[in-house]
């Protein structure tokens, strides 16, 4: 049995140690907001937070998760930064097909926690591994700036 803490809830899972976290989250726990895109850590659709750090859940086996807390897109509305990012995404209508956007939002949220006012180079650095085939990149960039501005206002 593997014990996972996902979005504050503890789950006892009967899963092999080498199962990637992605499939435990999706198929065993049933949180399907985290997406399968490549299975090789190449596209970022599966991005979750492990103790707040953005992590590709498709390549990290359950054995390597340990007791770190897992947060997924489903918990972002309860997270101050995550909620601001979601709000900015909606204000600018970033999404198209939407399949990659959970991962984009998770990556952007982690970026903004780390760097409250990222410039474009910082956005490229943090987001470059998150692919969007619809190429919503212009709006993702704008939405990150929007979220940063709204978070900055809340702080000040």
């Amino acid at each position, binding site marked *: 049995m593997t014990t996972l803490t996902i979005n504050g809830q503890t789950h006892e899972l009967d899963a*092999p140690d080498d*199962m*990637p976290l992605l*499939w435990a989250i*999706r*198929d*065993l726990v*049933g*949180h*399907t*907001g*985290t*997406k*399968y*895109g*490549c*299975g*090789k850590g*190449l*596209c970022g*659709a599966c991005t979750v937070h492990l103790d707040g750090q953005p992590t590709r859940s498709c390549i990290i086996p359950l054995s390597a998760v340990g007791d770190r807390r897992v947060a*997924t*897109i*489903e918990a*972002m*509305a309860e997270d101050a930064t995550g909620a601001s990012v*979601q709000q900015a*995404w*909606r204000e600018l*209508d*970033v*999404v*198209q*097909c*939407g*399949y*990659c*956007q*959970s991962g984009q*939002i998770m990556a952007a949220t982690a970026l903004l926690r780390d760097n409250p006012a990222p410039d474009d180079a910082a*956005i*490229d650095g943090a*987001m*470059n*591994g*998150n*692919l*969007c*085939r*619809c*190429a*919503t*990149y*212009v*709006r*993702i*960039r704008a939405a990150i700036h929007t979220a940063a501005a709204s978070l900055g206002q809340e702080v000040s």
Partner: protein
Amino acid sequence: MHVLANRQHDKAPAAADRLVNISRRGFMTGTAGLALGLYMVPLLGRGGGARAADENGEFAPNAFVRVSPDGEVVVIAKHIEMGQGSYTGLATLVAEELDADWESVRVEGAPADTRRYKNLAFGIQGTGGSTAIANAFEQMRRAGATARAMLVAAAAERLEVAPASLSVRQGKVLHEASGRELGFGELAEAAAGQAVPEEVTLKSPERFTLIGKQRLMRQDSPAKTDGSARFTQDVQLDGMLVAVPAHPPRFGSRLASVDDGEALKVPGVVASVRFPSPTRDGDLVAVLASNTWAAIRGRDALTLEWDDGRAFTLGSEEIEAAYRERAGEPGKPVTRRGDADTALNEAARVIEADYVVPYLAHAAMEPLDCVVDLQDDHCTIHNGEQWQTLDQQAVAQLLGLSPERVTIHQLYAGGSFGRRANPVSDYVLEAVAIARAARDQDRKAPIKMVWTREDDTRGGHYRPLNVHRARLGLDDNGKPVAWHQRIVGQSILTGTSMESMMVKGGIDPTSVEGASDLPYTVPALHVELHSPSDIGVPVQWWRSVGHSHTAFSTEGLIDEAAVAAGQDPYRYRRELLADHPRWRGVLDLAADKAGWTSPLEPGAEDVKRGRGIAVHQSFGSYVAQVAEVSVDAENTLRVDRVVCAVDCGMAVNPDVIRAQMEGGIGFALAATLHSEITLDGGQVVQSNFNDFQVLRHNEMPEIEVHIVASGEAPTGVGEPGVPPLAPAVTNAIHAATGRRLRRLPIADQLEA
């Protein structure tokens, strides 16, 4: 894309349905004609005067609108939402005429039901060719206007006033004389008792309050930002098993033997099933498991032997060499205007060039998948479904059921770019065949078939590799007097059910669209086509179809002509478009907004900068783009900025149009810079995003989109943003460096 019905693929059904050939011009007239007669099908088959309510007391005046007692307006979308904004667009049309409150509007995907939900441009249910808003423009508005009239009639009865004394605003019926108002919800039940009006009056455009007017939040934004949007991949049904199939190493390889011993040892794996492939040669095998990870591991643990005796074994280089040889011989005449050979002989100057584009995978972020719940006499499919009528017929044929026994539930698609509308229903039939094979083993569980990224990349049905050979003759003044173009590329439609209706005289219109109807004033235009039939790589439409390669060659060639003539590429085009005001309109707008006539800001030291322009019409929409590029001392290319002008007729949702241009530019830029599928000995070389490269954040240019104000009927925007981008970029590279690139992707060509 152009369309169809009546599939006669040897393994697919041969059901007769109506078939509409949409040439661009014929398309609009066809839409208008159909829209008059077929716009409304009562949900429960009721006629005028019958009650329009369902069991829940909801008001459902037609197949497209429901109003519930709590005031929620549900719009039923007949088109898939795969990112292109169709749900938002269709709901805008309904809400406009209904005068609904946008905050109370929700969209549901329609099930497969050709009678109610056919695409009026196709005659069958399906999405493609950037037709969603164009075909539904009047239909959805009538649906909204009908509902509105019935709500007003109900309010008139309730308030005991004349209907004409009532107005409707944001989900409320108002009696201004008395200050009384009633919400849609309060009226829903009573409205359902009203006669369905046979005639409704639609708003004239100056009365629009939503169409083209304001930015409405996309219908799918909330669910796609909190993880709750449901894609096929997310379906979980009781007892469901995940199936991952094994595909052959080459197109045409046949499965010779299966050893599933190791696969069955993988924890979670339940079984393997061997099944006759509905669309490939011979059998395939799939592994069934209780979760996706186990199914993938199980599939990978299969030991399979394949017989390549009849497999396709050429590589891309050999295919290209063969195509270049074919390009030296006359092809089937497509367009013949004037005498190009004589004009070329007499020309002051002749430009000769080959343009080459590779196979391309669609590579949607959601790899192909499909959920099948098969019963003895019924099949339920859950899918991001782009091709309802033909998939439904194909499944029915495979199972020996009538199409009504095949239910297809609509889900969001994580991209498609054409792939989920497969001409032979490949992935849907594969899922059904697996479910049937499982059932034959007495495993009656619902099946979710999942392809891995590698399966998706190597699964075929690519945008075809093309070689275009051109000779342009210019006169003493640099004006083109002859344009001779030979296109060599596989036909998408040949061998499909669409062939008999669409392919005339051996000409597949999707191979030549955008070249055969070249808009420039050239006295002699010859376009010829070779469609090699001996290439075993399955091909398919890919966002903008033939335009994805014809715009690259034609807009590259006209640029070459301008340069050879020593003229400004924008003005040169403009002169030759005197008879085409909409082409000229977007060309002028893009050039103006890009500041074409002022010099481009210089780059840093050792950085060469250049500006390129291209204009193209596809699917009835006109798009011009100006690209600005920088090439540094290491020959690293950056596309800095793209200014885009689009004329898509009346702009229904301006922000969705902007988004589609932005996305189309990014999608096209991936293919311009990086993406290609190559074959080596018949095997697809690429496998995942490491080697099938798409665009990344840091490569996205700054983009400006300008929409031409127009009262023309709306046309599509999903595809038309794609074609001009590649030539705008390569023309800009020429302006910057003097190097003319005639092959995509650019990859490392600048380093050579």
